């Protein structure tokens, strides 16, 4: 117990000193820190405490209608062909928010209507309203118009998916704790705390991340392609690396594989030339399809398309098995990473445009924060005073430990640049509470052992030994719950867990090791025969 060699003391004091120094930038006002020549790590204050950047995103609802019509068009084409008997249709087109097609054989009109109602009928939404109006003009031409209710529902569905995709993308950036709110029918409010670079956020959210693989039409006439005239069954798309949009390529219209079949996407480096690439992994079905398509098209080029821009159009040298592929295309590490995040968080069902940008004040309001700070100061003073009158000298040590612990937690959070929000503060309060509890446990044990008639040194030693076991058990349980919440939770649950985990590690050190050192030094120096505890 009394055996605290000099190197150990130096070590403990050294670690704590460094931690206190690292915590200081987080406590100083931002304008003082920003003047410092070195870049000091600092805690990010969350939206509720300090505000942050604000983006208002707006969805293009015409897009949703167009996509809805496009899907229906594909569905009709397949169903008419697949059913028995086959119904030949022609002149199918989606224009002006309507979808129309013609039945070639007039005697099949009734059968076509029957089959069409089967398709459209299956699209009846939860509200029980029809999603399409169907009418027949000129006895063979069908015209489908999406109803208002159907469109509204479609927009609503798209927006809720979009909101989740936006959240996933921001969560990928680290423990940011964004606020994401749907506003009105077609807008999303995004608030991110302390973001230095709103442009990166805008780039990330602006990507639709629609990934497609299409075969290149090698027979297309290059001159016609340059003029934008597509052969039948083809589409013409520009290359992403050519901002002028001059370089174009003709591709088969049908998409062989799409991003829906992705299992994962990561930024990696090319084995051969060390260039940043995006490595993608398909899910089972996508992998099989990818293998089949590449097998059937060896020595032909295919194009990798993101958001209707061709990233690259390599030749298929051999069949690619195993469901893994690389997207190359002159990426930087950052742009490859952004694309990987966008692909893995899923495709936005609708394009989002930034319509407003601003900074916002704290969610909680300056007044509440002032009140909170005052309350915390009074609470801290009360706890310190109470520990002092209960445990005397041992209370002083406990208080020292708690104060230093606060600094150490702040330092640790600054190093991993965690975001501190109100739930984080709750985690803080819990850690401080259990740290105080650790000292209460130790001191009560010492009291107990003194009552049993043990000598000062023995009582202190046993007190620390027995209490340490209890403290270990309690902290292990805490750590388990913290870990689960960190891995599973997001938003406030995650913020709480981060602070809790850091606090567990630091409080054991300060509440047990540090106070033990102080007590040992005092006993060694004074050799008391009785202690006031």
């Amino acid at each position, binding site marked *: 117990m009394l055996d605290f060699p000099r190197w150990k003391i130096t070590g403990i004091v050294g670690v704590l000193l460094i931690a206190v120094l690292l915590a200081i930038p987080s406590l100083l006002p931002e304008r003082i820190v920003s003047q410092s020549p070195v870049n000091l790590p600092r805690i990010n204050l969350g939206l509720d405490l300090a505000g942050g950047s604000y983006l208002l995103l707006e969805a293009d609802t015409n897009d949703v209608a167009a996509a809805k019509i496009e899907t229906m068009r594909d569905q009709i084409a397949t169903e008419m062909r697949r059913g028995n008997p086959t119904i030949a249709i022609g002149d199918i087109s989606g224009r002006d928010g309507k979808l129309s097609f013609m039945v070639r054989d007039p005697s099949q009109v009734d059968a076509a209507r029957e089959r069409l109602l089967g398709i459209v009928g299956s699209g009846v939404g939860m509200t029980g309203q029809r999603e399409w109006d169907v009418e027949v003009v000129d006895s063979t031409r069908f015209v489908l118009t999406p109803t208002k209710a159907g469109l509204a529902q479609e927009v609503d569905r798209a927006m809720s998916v979009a909101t*989740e995709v936006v959240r996933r993308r921001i969560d990928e950036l680290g423990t940011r704790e964004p606020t994401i709110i749907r506003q009105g029918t077609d807008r999303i409010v995004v608030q991110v705390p302390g973001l230095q670079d709103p442009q990166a956020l805008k780039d990330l959210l602006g990507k639709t991340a629609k990934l497609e693989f299409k075969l290149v039409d090698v027979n297309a006439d290059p001159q016609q392609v340059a003029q934008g005239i597509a052969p039948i069954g083809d589409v013409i798309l520009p290359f992403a690396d050519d901002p002028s949009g001059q370089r174009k390529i003709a591709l088969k219209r049908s998409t062989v594989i799409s991003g829906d079949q992705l299992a994962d996407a990561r930024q990696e480096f090319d084995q051969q030339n060390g260039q940043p690439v995006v490595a993608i992994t398909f899910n089972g079905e996508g992998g099989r399809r990818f293998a089949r398509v590449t097998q059937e098209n060896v020595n032909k080029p295919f194009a990798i398309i993101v958001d209707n821009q061709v990233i690259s159009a390599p030749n298929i040298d051999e069949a690619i098995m195993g469901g893994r592929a690389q997207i190359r295309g002159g990426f930087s590490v950052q742009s490859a990473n952004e694309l990987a995040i966008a692909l893995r968080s899923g495709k936005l069902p609708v394009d989002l445009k930034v319509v407003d940008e601003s900074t916002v*004040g704290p969610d909680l309001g300056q007044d509440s924060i002032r*009140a909170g700070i005052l309350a915390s100061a009074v609470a801290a003073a009360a706890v310190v005073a109470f520990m002092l009158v209960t445990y005397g000298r041992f209370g002083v040590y406990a208080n020292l430990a708690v104060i230093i612990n606060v600094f150490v937690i702040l330092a640790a959070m600054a190093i991993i640049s965690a975001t501190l929000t109100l*739930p984080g503060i*709750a985690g803080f309060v819990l850690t401080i509470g259990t740290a105080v509890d650790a000292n209460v446990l130790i001191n009560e044990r010492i009291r107990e052992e003194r009552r049993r008639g043990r000598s000062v040194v023995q009582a202190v030693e046993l007190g620390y030994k027995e209490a340490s076991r209890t403290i270990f*058990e309690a902290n292990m*349980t805490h750590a388990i719950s913290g870990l689960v919440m960190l891995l599973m939770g997001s938003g406030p649950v995650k913020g*709480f867990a981060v602070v809790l985990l850091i606090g567990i590690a630091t409080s054991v050190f300060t509440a047990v090791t540090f106070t033990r050192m102080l007590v040992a030094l005092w006993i060694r120096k004074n050799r008391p025969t009785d202690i006031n505890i």
Partner: protein
Amino acid sequence: MRLLKIVPDNTNIGFVRLRYWAFGLTLLLSIASVALVGVKHLNFGVDFVGGLMIEERFPSPPEIDKVRSTIDRLGVGTSTLQQFSDPRLVTIRLPVQDGADEGATNRVVRTVEQALAKEFPGATFSRYSTVSGKVSSELVRNGILAVVLAMIGISLFAIFRFEWQFGVSTFVAILHDLLMTLGFFALTQLEFDLTIVAAVLTIIGYSINDKIVIDDRIRENMRKYRSMSMSDLVDLSVNETLPRTVMTSVTILLALGAMLFLGGHVLRGFTAAMILGVIVGTYSSIYVSSSLLITLGLRAQPPAPGSGGKAERIAEQP
């Protein structure tokens, strides 16, 4: 200096004797809590259910707490205020009103508009729209899953480190604390928002801490007093840890008391939940988890042959 001692030395309170009453009471309160949540529902705040967003432009940067108190007096729910880079522009978020049809929404908007115009001459109302909650259903699902998995993880840990009875009793006790807290929120209809989620997590944390401390002492005493009856042993352990339980609870309540009175209204629900949690958690450590150990049939190892003596204290290393 004479030091303060809240709990006298060597208390001998018969906690365990009352356990059947306590079980009855606990069961009754738990059922009541579930029923309350089922019937009255939780009063979810704007964080969860979304609501209205009103943008108000003031002639000069307003005092935020004055705006807040003006709106609070209207009885339209708790508001969340946020200032933009232009501090004269303030957004006001309000939860969805009961039976919100368009008419009701418009009435709320008009009430707020008129009250603000009266209190702050020159304030103009620029627009309003409906907003979703901050918390999507996916987030809620993940959060609940995280808490449930954490509870299971803790119970497994307790089974692994102690005996299976400790795992079960800890799980039941945490569940009890959760139910009580939710019941309290259903009863008082205090707004349940993201800060309360943090408070609930903190409550669980404190409560687990409390249980492990007592559990650890029970285990220790089981080794020391091998032939003592389980109920005496639990009583002894709870009494031995009583000074610590009271000390810690008083310390925390002191801190929370300061928060309740000085923390302003945003922290009030948070603090109320925590105070309730400390009380409920302490109760459940003694009357739910510890007493349950007896019912679950935990017993000390039979005395090793030849050790003799009743309630013999196993020697400790000095």
